[in-house]
């Protein structure tokens, strides 16, 4: 499939899955909450311009907020994550820099690179999201704990999904 078509499709798919399914899934008494739409943002090409990344992330977050009644919470978190994503990419870049063909996937960059990047980005997203939701210092530390456990859960889910998709592609 044309990569230009693939990006909007994967964004649409992740947002749809988040709104229709993951939004209603709360594990371990609130310690496992998933933000599946973040995968769509994380899978955007590595050479995406920061401003474009910000705008796309805002649109993705706003879509989730709109359909899941998040009231700007996911928009704000997605924008924050998108702000730090170029910095994370730079920090994790190989010594010779990224190749034009490099993709932000396990298959292309390896499980270690993918895990560190995904956990860092999800942590920023979730820390911001849970801090905003807590809104007061008495709930803040619990919120941060939930953000980190949710980031770990998200990392496992994203890795599993990508492994499944890549495995299917290999079979073809």
């Amino acid at each position, binding site marked *: 499939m044309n990569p230009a078509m693939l990006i909007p499709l994967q964004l649409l798919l992740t947002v749809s899955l988040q709104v229709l399914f993951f939004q209603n899934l709360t594990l371990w008494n609130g310690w496992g909450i998933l933000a599946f739409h973040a995968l769509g943002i994380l899978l955007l090409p590595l050479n995406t311009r920061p401003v474009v990344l*910000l*705008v796309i992330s805002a649109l993705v977050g706003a879509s989730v907020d709109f359909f899941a009644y998040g*009231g*700007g919470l996911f928009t*704000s978190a997605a924008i924050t994550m998108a702000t730090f994503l170029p910095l994370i990419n730079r920090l994790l870049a190989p010594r010779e820099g990224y190749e034009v063909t490099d993709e932000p996937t396990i298959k292309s960059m390896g499980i270690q690179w993918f895990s560190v990047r995904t956990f860092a980005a999800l942590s920023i997203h979730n820390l911001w999201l849970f801090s905003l939701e807590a809104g007061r210092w008495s709930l803040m530390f619990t919120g941060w704990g939930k953000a980190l456990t949710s980031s770990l859960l998200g990392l496992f889910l994203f890795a599993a999904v990508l492994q499944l998709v890549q495995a299917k592609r290999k079979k073809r």
Partner: protein
Amino acid sequence: MRNLWNFIVQYQVILVFMLLQGLAMSWFVTSHGFPRGKWVRLALNWESAWQGRLAQWSHRTELSDQNIQLLEENARLRSTLGQSSSSPKGNRSKFIAAEVIRLTWVQDQNYFILNQGRDQGIRIGQGVTENGAAIGKIIETTNAYSIGIPLLHNRLDWSARIGQSGAIGRLKWNGVDATSGVLYDIPRSADLKPGDSVLTTGFQGVFPPDLLFGIVADEPPFFDGEFLNVPVNWSANFQSLRYVQLTETTDRKLLDSLQSTVNLSTP
């Protein structure tokens, strides 16, 4: 314009972030009860503080406006009082309100500038009073401003009288103390004591009669031949002059022409 464009290009990520985050946060604050409540309380505090500050400023401005209104009303009342008086001298003066915008009191020949000029009816030679006390006269005017000399001027003599029917002398500032002057040429036989009023005579045509210059100071008068020189404490505080009134002797031209007749007939 080019610099602005360069700035936007250079900081585009931060600017877009701030814009989008601002929109998201406003959406969040307006749609969630707790942050909305918190925001409303915060905004209420800020607004109350700001409104309080505005009210203070407004109050000060209002006080200033009220001062000017009171001053004008005072001038009007003084004019009315003069016109309605049964005494013939009462009909000879009217008052105009003004504010002192520049003032000196540490020189030998001081001056003050008022915010009223020819357009408001101020003319050279008009007397200036503060709360009914004589303080100086106008020597030059423009359309919008006028300049005057106060009692604190060592080359001017003012015709003054002790009490309403006491001895008459020359009141002059000695150039030393801004709170007092000296009334010269008072006969030794004059009956005076500290605290007696020193009033205008109205002879110079600057002030109407019986306006207060000051009071006889609690110091012994010093002798000058057949006369006494009497220390006088000014009624007005020249270091805090602000709102004043100008007196206009309405029949001054008539009196001047009468005086010139006397001068012509003098051998």
